[in-house]
Structures are given as C-alpha cells and as structure tokens.
C-alpha cells in the first residue's frame, strides 16, 4: 500500500470512530445505551439493519464465490423481502407494543422463564461464535498487506472494535452505520467501474459478462430441485425465507436495530426498504466478482490468492516442486487466454458452433487450473498441516491491492474495516443487551440502579469482545467464512424461529411443550447437519417445522395426561 492509501484508510477510520464516540456522548442510561431512546427515523433503521447484515465477510467472500462458482449465491437472499413482510405484520408491532428491550423478553410473557432463557442462550452461543468469524474477516486484510500471521491482526482489529463498541451505544452505532453504508456504496461502484476500465480495450461491460457466462459464472437462477444443491430458487425462497425471518425476527443484533426506530411505522419502513434494496445490492457485489473473473482471463492470476500461505510454501523445502507447478500453470493460462480470445471473436460473429467449441476448451482449461490449484494446496498441507487451503476470501482482496489505483485501494480496505466494525458493534451490543436484560437483570439482580445496569452492559460488551476475539483466532481453520456463518446460523435459527412462531400463531401450546419441543428439535437438527443429510439452508425450515410439530405433540400429551378421558 502506498502512503496515499494509508492516509485514506487511517483518515476514514479516525473520522468514523470519532464520529461514533461523539454521537454516543451523553448516553447515560440503559434505554439510551441499548435502544437509542427509540428515536431513529426509517432510513437510519434501514441502513443500520443493512450494515449489520453486510459485514466485511460480504465484501470479501461474495466476489470470491462468484469468481469460483458463479452468482447462484444471490438466490440465498430471495426469502428476505418475504421475511420483511411477515416481520412488519407480526413481530414489529408486538415488540413495540410490549416495549421490550430484547426479543426473548416477549417469550417469558407468552410462555415462561425457561423458554426465554433457552432462546437467549441459543442466541448468545450462535452470535458469540459467528461474531468471532466477523472479526476474523478484516484481519485477513492486514495480514495480507503486512505479510504477518492473522493471529496478530485478529488481536489488533478485535481490540479496536471492542474499544469502539464499549463507548458507542446503539445510537452511535446507527449513526456511524449511515456513514459506513454511504462510503460502501460509493467504493463498490468505483471498484466495479475500475474492473471494467482495466479490461482489454475490445472487452466492454457486456462482453466481460458474456465471457464469464460461457464459463458458468452468471448462473443467477437455478431451477433444479436437488435437495443437496445449496443455492437454488427453492432453497433461496423457502430456506432463505426461514433463515432471514429467524435472523431478523429473533436475532437480537437485528431486533435491537429496528427497535431503535421512532415508531412502528419507522421500523416497518426501514425493514421494507431493506427488502427492496438488499437483493440488487448483493447481485452487484457478485457481479463485481464475475468481472474480476473475466479480468483474470486476460491477466494471469496468482496460483494461490492467499499470498501469506504462498510465501510460506516458497520459503519451504517444497519450493522446487512449487516452481514446476507454476511453470505448468503459466502454460495452461496461455492456452486459456488463446481460447478466451477465440471465444471473444466467436461472440462478435455470433457463431453458435464456435462458441460451443470454445466453451468446451475453456471448461477443460478451468478444470486443469483447478487441478493445479489442488496440487499447490496438497503441498501446503504437506508443508504445514494447519495451512489455510481456501483462498476464496483472498480473491477480491488480491485484485484490489494489485490492480486498483492509489487512494482507491485505501478506500476499499477502509470499507471492509467499516463494514466489519459496524456489524461487530451491533453484535456486541446485542450480546450485551441479552446478557444484561435476559440474564443479569432477570436472574441475578432484579432491582439494581440504572447506572449499575449501564456499567454491567459495558462490562458484558468487553466480556463478549474477548470471547469473539478468541473465536476469531480459530476462524482461520474454517473454509469459506460467509458460508461458515450461515451454516452455523442454520443449526440454531430454525429452532428459535419455531419457538417464536408457536408464540405468535399457536395459542394452545404452553411453555413446557414448546421448551421440550425446542430441545428435541435442536438435537435432531444438529444430527442432520452434522451428517450432511440435506443442504444447510433446509435446516432452517426443518428446525422451524419440527418445533411446531413437537410442541403440538407434547402439548396434546400433556393435556391427555391431565385429562385422560378427555373430559372438559
């Protein structure tokens, strides 16, 4: 990175953090700290829920996914607008009317304490673990730039975020996220324009997408019904709907965001606008990955995008073998470049036969490249059993640092930092809310002063910050970060959503039935997920349905036991 990039990066971070701290001044009570005094307009709510969901992982992993397997990931978000509608009809008015701090408070009013405690516990586990991964993602950036181990960068970034979050309450987080999202939109637009600009003169925007499309990278819609296929229209609509509904309806990191809305209408409008904007935004991020893919058909990509792992291998005794592989890789890339040029000519002539022919050649070359990559990762594991052999998260980053102009590199790296800080801040804030409101205030000390709850909230933020940093240190052993977060969520979200749906819609079920129904479901879902019986998105649907099913069965059994002859 050049001096200008460092200046842009540091200036952006300093301005945002200072702004957050400035906005959080004067927040001296628990209501302001956790809910921002419920005073925010809809656009704050909208940008805040978007910034909370769109972490640094979104900007690192999504273009990498598009590069390596195409755009099918966009279907993951198809359930989101539908989920927003259900939230606006049911969840938002109830949470506002009952004036709750956390979603789990409502469950005690509807069921009992143990159901509230179980769901709060599941949330703390899920969010605690996944926030670790959220912290780890931007630490990859520093490790690549400075060429040092991710352990040190994780510790640095984690500490920075914890410091910022302890000072910044919900209101400050929301204000900061508005600036963050504005910078993110501008930066991504600039990055997309730059990729097109860097393509050869005869390759325009549409041609670049056409070339990637012929190599299977524009598969935005998949209509197949294979239950093991992770991203199809059906998994997106059904599984995605349940996942998004449970994420936005029952995950305190999101509930806390829209509960800060000034009224039911402001919260609703914020969520519905999120439903309008989210899918196109995700599509454009994936499209950047597709454009980067085409760019690398004309510019030889590194044999492995994670430069830290590659440097380690180059310095090892396996370097001679690596050099042989690199030479072979160069030859294959040259072959591929010739084939891409022929494909370009065929596209100009609109010659279907030639296009099909070149498609086959390119697909074969693609397979050869993958096999070369496999040889490299095998060597990495031989050299170091703990080597990180998944470089998806490094693809976009590698492109940004090598090819974008000075200043823009700093801005894009700042974006990744800001995105991570925004989502991590929301997560830590929600972990603190749940710990204080559902655990400390409810189970440990009911009548403490407002000042004490505020102090405990800050301490809880520090505690969860430490837990998340420790988790982040283990995140490097997990493959694609974005998928890891979603898989983890699918194990838990379905169950929590099931509990909430029973609470809202099945009035005949009581606390004991739903509690044991949820415990049984969690066991079944974990077994299904662990043994990879179905694609992970389906776990949300299965989990939700099983809670409703088990609760009804158990409720019937309880009634029958109380009244075996069915007398009223």
């Amino acid at each position: 990175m050049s001096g200008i990039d460092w200046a842009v990066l540091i200036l952006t971070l300093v301005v945002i953090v200072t702004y957050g701290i400035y906005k959080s001044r004067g927040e001296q009570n628990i209501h302001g700290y956790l809910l921002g005094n419920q005073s925010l307009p809809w656009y704050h709510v909208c940008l805040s829920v978007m910034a909370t969901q769109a972490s640094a992982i979104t900007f690192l992993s999504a273009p990498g996914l598009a590069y390596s397997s195409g755009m099918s990931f966009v279907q993951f978000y198809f359930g989101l607008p539908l989920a927003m509608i259900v939230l606006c009809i049911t969840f938002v008015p109830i949470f506002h009317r009952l004036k709750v701090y956390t979603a789990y408070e409502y469950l005690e009013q509807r069921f009992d304490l143990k159901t509230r405690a179980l769901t709060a516990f599941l949330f703390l586990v899920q969010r605690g673990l996944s926030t670790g991964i959220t912290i780890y993602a931007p630490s990859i950036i520093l490790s690549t730039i400075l060429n040092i181990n991710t352990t040190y960068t994780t510790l640095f970034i984690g500490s920075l975020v914890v410091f910022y979050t302890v000072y910044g309450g919900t209101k400050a987080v929301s204000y900061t996220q508005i600036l963050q999202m504005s910078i993110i939109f501008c930066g991504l637009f600039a990055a997309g324009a730059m990729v097109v600009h860097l393509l050869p003169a005869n390759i325009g925007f549409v041609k670049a997408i056409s070339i990637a499309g012929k190599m299977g990278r524009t598969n935005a819609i998949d209509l197949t019904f294979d239950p093991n296929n992770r991203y199809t229209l059906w998994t997106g609509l059904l599984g995605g709907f349940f996942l998004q509904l449970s994420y936005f309806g029952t995950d305190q990191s999101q509930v806390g965001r829209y509960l800060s809305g000034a009224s039911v209408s402001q919260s609703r409008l914020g969520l519905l606008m999120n439903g309008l904007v989210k899918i196109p935004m995700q599509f454009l991020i994936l499209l950047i990955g597709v454009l980067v893919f085409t760019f690398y058909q004309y510019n030889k990509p590194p044999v492995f995008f994670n430069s830290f792992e590659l440097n380690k291998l180059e310095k090892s005794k396996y370097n001679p073998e690596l050099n042989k592989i690199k030479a072979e890789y160069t030859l294959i890339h040259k072959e591929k470049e010739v084939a891409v040029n022929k494909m370009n000519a065929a596209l100009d002539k609109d010659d279907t036969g030639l296009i099909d022919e070149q498609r086959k050649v390119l697909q074969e070359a693609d397979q050869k490249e993958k096999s070369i990559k496999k040889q490299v990762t095998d060597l990495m594991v031989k050299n170091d059993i703990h080597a990180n052999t998944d470089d998806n998260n490094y693809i976009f980053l590698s492109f940004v640092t090598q090819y974008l102009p000075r200043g823009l590199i700093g801005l894009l790296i700042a974006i990744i930092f800001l995105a991570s800080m925004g989502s991590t801040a929301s997560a830590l804030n929600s972990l603190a809310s749940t710990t204080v409101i559902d655990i400390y205030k409810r189970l440990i000390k009911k009548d403490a002063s407002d000042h004490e709850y505020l102090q405990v909230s800050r301490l809880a933020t520090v505690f969860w910050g430490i837990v998340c940093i420790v988790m982040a240190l283990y995140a490097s052993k997990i493959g694609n970060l974005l998928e890891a977060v979603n898989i983890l969520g699918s194990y838990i979200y379905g169950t929590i959503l099931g509990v909430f749906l029973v609470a809202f819609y099945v009035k005949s079920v009581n606390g004991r039935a739903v509690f044991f129904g949820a415990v049984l479901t969690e066991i079944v879902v974990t077994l299904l997920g662990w043994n990879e019986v179905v694609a992970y998105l389906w776990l949300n649907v299965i989990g939700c349905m099983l809670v409703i099913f088990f609760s009804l069965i158990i409720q019937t059994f309880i009634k029958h036991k109380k009244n075996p002859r069915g007398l009223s």
Partner: protein
Amino acid sequence: MKPESPLQNEQELPPFVKTWRQFYRLLIGWLVFLILIFYAFTKYFE
C-alpha cells in the same frame, strides 16, 4: 419501566402508497420482477 417513545404511532401511513398492504404487494411484485430479470440474465449469458 421503559420511557414512552415520543413518536409512537401505529397509524402512520407509508410513503408512495395508501396502505401498508399495498406496500407489501409492491415488495412481492419487486421480488418477482427481480427473479424474472435474473432468470433472463442467466439464460442470456449462459
């Protein structure tokens, strides 16, 4: 007890349309439109 929100009002109407139900229909229509556009995109470039 949590303080009352000064703007708490469930009767506020959404912008652009007359009722919330219309806004929900608008969102569903937008989703269908996006799916159709993406399908055309997939078919055109594959």
